[in-house]
């Protein structure tokens, strides 16, 4: 009897082993098909274009908002840029508050949530489709986005919830509810609920699946091809250990290594630019020319513009509302100071880091150009520019960096995985805050969300880039729809804070400690 079982088990084992690769492949395919078909309608709605154009209304929505905030607050991002740096340095912090969350810490944590694959993979996608010109629109959108970020983070701190035990919870769901109630405007609660739903989807999409997906792409780039669900399960296990198992040490290590990686990334990019210093002028020429002509990319000028704006928004999350959650914990008597600090975020994220990625891709000549016409050559499908290695996303960035500094792809692989991981941890927190806003606090309720979050890590790693990136963008932009409606209603409140603060800064009532 025993021999029978043993033989049967051995036979089963052989069969399973033989079938494993095919099985693995089909799991990936099934996940992909199911995912694409179940999210398509949502993606189509968010990215539908203005009638008669190919300009998605959502991109216009974000840029118009950023422009309105920029003008409404009188170019606050430039007027208070220096003051923001002084705040981060702690010049205005009360020494008696030492030991509390500082402006620097709130900014650093928020940044490690936003600086991530958007800066490495997202920019590569943008430049790959929209050409160098996309960089120009990306920088512009980043500069404008600083005003959106300022608005939402000021409100995030002003209307945060402080609980008797001393913990704080903040974010759009709180300012939408409390701010609207204060103004006597109805609908705040509805917006808050909608925001929370989209925030959960965004956390599972851009904050999770996109990260897992690109981390897998990076791993296969270094290790060779293997099924995505394997990466997914490994990642899910680590995420599980941190957010459910309470293994804080992993998160703490990531939190400390990520800034170092960020500096290393920008540093390497600068070295590559210096190595190619003779082409810097040419690269900027390409960026400006591409911005207004498209240089033959799919969709021309509008194509470049859409890609630039989309990537900037996806990368720095200005107007999305996520940063308002991260910035809420700071210790300050003036909510607006956190608004000033937060406006540095799109600057560092988009204007500095994203631009570095774009410049390296352009300057190392990854995008194939027709030497006769000076226009880019499109791939067979006509959807993106043909690249040297026929790659896109993070693989394109990797190719660009490696072409100058061989072996950098390994450093980049580590950076991508760490960025992906820290972004996941941040978004699991944002998602959880939205979840508890909807369903209330409680161990079991929180556990349900955390388990769902881990499952989506696996799905994200297994699905192919197209559907994942579409869904991620769509969910994050849906947050922005709700959040920005709220910001329009609440911006007079921020204006009052700004006027009062500027006044007191002038009279010396708000003074430097250091």
């Amino acid at each position, binding site marked *: 009897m025993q021999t029978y079982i043993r033989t049967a088990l051995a036979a089963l084992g052989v069969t399973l082993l033989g079938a494993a690769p095919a099985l693995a492949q089909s799991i990936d395919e099934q996940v992909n098909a199911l995912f694409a078909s179940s999210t398509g309608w949502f993606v189509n709605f968010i990215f539908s274009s203005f009638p008669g154009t190919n300009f998605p209304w959502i991109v216009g929505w974000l840029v118009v908002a950023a422009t309105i905030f920029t003008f409404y607050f009188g170019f606050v991002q430039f007027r208070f840029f220096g003051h923001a740096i002084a705040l981060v340095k702690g010049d205005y912090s009360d020494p008696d508050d030492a*030991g509390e969350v500082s402006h*620097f*810490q709130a900014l650093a944590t928020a940044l490690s949530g936003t600086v991530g694959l958007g800066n490495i993979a997202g920019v590569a996608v943008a430049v790959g489709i929209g050409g160098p010109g996309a960089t120009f629109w990306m920088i512009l959108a980043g500069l404008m986005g600083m005003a959106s970020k300022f608005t939402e983070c000021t409100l995030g701190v002003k209307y945060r919830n402080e609980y008797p035990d001393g*913990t704080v919870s903040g974010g759009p769901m709180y300012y939408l509810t409390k701010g609207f109630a204060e103004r006597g405007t109805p609908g705040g609660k509805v917006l808050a609920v909608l925001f929370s739903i989209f925030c959960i989807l965004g956390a599972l999409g851009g904050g999770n699946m996109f990260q897992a997906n690109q981390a897998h792409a990076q791993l296969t780039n270094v290790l060779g091809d293997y099924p995505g669900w394997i990466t997914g399960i490994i990642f899910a296990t680590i995420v599980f250990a941190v957010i459910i198992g309470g293994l804080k040490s992993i998160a*703490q290590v990531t939190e400390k290594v990520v800034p170092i990686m960020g500096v290393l990334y920008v540093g390497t990019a600068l070295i590559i630019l210096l190595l190619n210093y003779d082409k810097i002028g040419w690269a900027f020429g390409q960026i400006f020319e591409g911005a207004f002509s498209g240089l033959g990319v799919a969709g021309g000028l509008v194509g470049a513009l859409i890609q630039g704006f989309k990537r900037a928004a996806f990368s720095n999350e200005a107007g999305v509302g996520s940063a308002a959650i*991260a910035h809420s914990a700071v*210790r300050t008597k003036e909510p607006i100071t956190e608004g000033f600090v937060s406006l540095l975020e799109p600057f560092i994220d988009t204007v500095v880091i994203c631009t570095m990625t774009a410049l390296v891709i352009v300057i190392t000549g990854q995008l194939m150009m027709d030497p006769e016409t000076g226009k880019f050559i499109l791939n067979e499908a006509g959807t993106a520019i043909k690249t040297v290695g026929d790659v896109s996303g993070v693989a394109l960035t990797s190719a660009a960096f490696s072409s100058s500094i061989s072996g950098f792809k390994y450093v980049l692989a580590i950076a991508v995985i760490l960025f992906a991981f820290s972004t996941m*941890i941040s978004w699991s927190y944002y998602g959880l805050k939205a979840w508890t806003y909807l369903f209330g606090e409680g161990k079991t309720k929180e556990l349900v969300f955390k388990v769902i979050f881990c499952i989506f890590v696996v799905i994200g790693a297994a699905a192919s880039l197209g559907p994942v990136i579409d869904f991620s963008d769509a969910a994050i932009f849906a947050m922005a729809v709700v959040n920005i409606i709220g910001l329009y209603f609440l911006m007079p409140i921020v204006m009052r804070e700004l006027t009062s603060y500027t006044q007191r800064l002038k009279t010396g009532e708000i003074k430097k400690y250091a």
Partner: protein
Amino acid sequence: MSGKIVVGYDGSAAGRRALDFALARAKAQDSSVLIAHVLEWSPYSFLTPDELEERHVRRKEEMARAETAVIGPVLEKLKDSGVEITTVIKYGHIAEKLAEIAKDSGAIQLVVGRDGHGSLAARVFGSVAGTLVQIATVPTTIVP
């Protein structure tokens, strides 16, 4: 009453030696003693979102623990010492904060202990006593 002596105290044996030294000085010259306990803290460290949320609570807990575990017992022990004793608990870079407390309280002397171990660690990270030698603005005694 002539002047105030600030002593850096962290509950360790070295801190205890510094305190004893300061008390003996204080008795001899009729000074008061300010026991300063500094919790290491940098506003430029990196925290996770969860840590940010809980920071205010943790700080309260850390302050309470410092009060009950470090400052409380020593006050209890010294209540009959005949020296006027005050205490302060602060967050910050330990050496810088001690120097600042000594300066701001108008102390005539600052006393700290040193454990004399871990010379390698001290070389890499710098020691409190070593840093104070460089930055203190009042006469500083280092008790071995």
